[in-house]
């Protein structure tokens, strides 16, 4: 077993375990912290795929900014385990069964796909994920979507302020 495989399986196990812990934690704060662990595992996968820019952006934007926003909101509401609403056992079972059926259907589809046979994702190779290449393409071919994104951010900011304002 090569080092890449060991790293892949370790990061995958970490991601899936912490994603399951997000679901079964009763306290929402623990859910947020487990989700941060999931995002770090996914960033590790990005580094394994040599997508270094996305790895850093994932850590800064997701684990850093978005999750801190979630934590702020949870602490603002002063939620804890006593106030945690729970669905009935049958509803939980139905949700797990339907999600599992979805996964089973897609897994069997991927197992039979002829197009995916003997295709490899290049790990530790190729430099398209480096910031030099991505920046050049972003500011030449994708400059219009980039500017539209800034308008989207401005409108999201205005929307958040208008919604959050006490009327």
């Amino acid at each position: 077993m090569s080092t890449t495989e060991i790293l892949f399986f370790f990061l995958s196990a970490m991601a899936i375990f912490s994603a399951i812990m997000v679901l079964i934690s009763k306290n929402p704060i623990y859910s947020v912290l487990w989700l941060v662990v999931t995002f770090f595992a996914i960033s590790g996968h990005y580094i394994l795929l040599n997508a270094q820019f996305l790895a850093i952006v994932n850590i800064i934007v997701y684990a850093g900014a978005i999750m801190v926003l979630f934590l702020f909101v949870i602490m603002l509401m002063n939620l804890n385990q006593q106030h945690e609403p729970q669905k009935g056992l049958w509803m939980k079972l139905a949700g797990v069964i339907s999600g599992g059926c979805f996964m089973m259907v897609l897994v069997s589809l991927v197992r039979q796909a002829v197009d995916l046979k003997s295709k490899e994702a290049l790990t530790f190779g190729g430099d398209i994920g480096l910031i030099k290449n991505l920046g050049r393409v972003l500011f030449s071919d994708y400059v219009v979507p980039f500017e539209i994104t800034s308008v989207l951010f401005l409108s999201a900011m205005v929307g958040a302020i208008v919604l959050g304002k006490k009327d």
Partner: protein
Amino acid sequence: MPIQYYIYLCLALFSIGIIGALTRRNVIVVFMCIELMFNAVNLLLVAFSKMHLGMAAISDKASTVGTDGQLFVFFIMVVAAAEVSVGLAIIVMLFRNTHSVDINFLNRLKN
């Protein structure tokens, strides 16, 4: 790594996100499960971009195939950040009006 492994991993993460969105009633946890689904899709996009690069690099060493996939991931992250800021503002407003984060309170919208 074979591309199937990445597909299985992302399917597992996406399904966990779906199960969470179906089984939890806390609206913040439902929102977090949606973020988990976003991340599964992002990881799959990066894996496929590296798959196409690996196939193109056999004939051309300096190929930049797959850059578009990684930029799509970047834009998805940007849109997700905007979505989170608006969504959390809506959740805060909901909490201020109903003093609860129970998603079942929202079923009054159907009337």
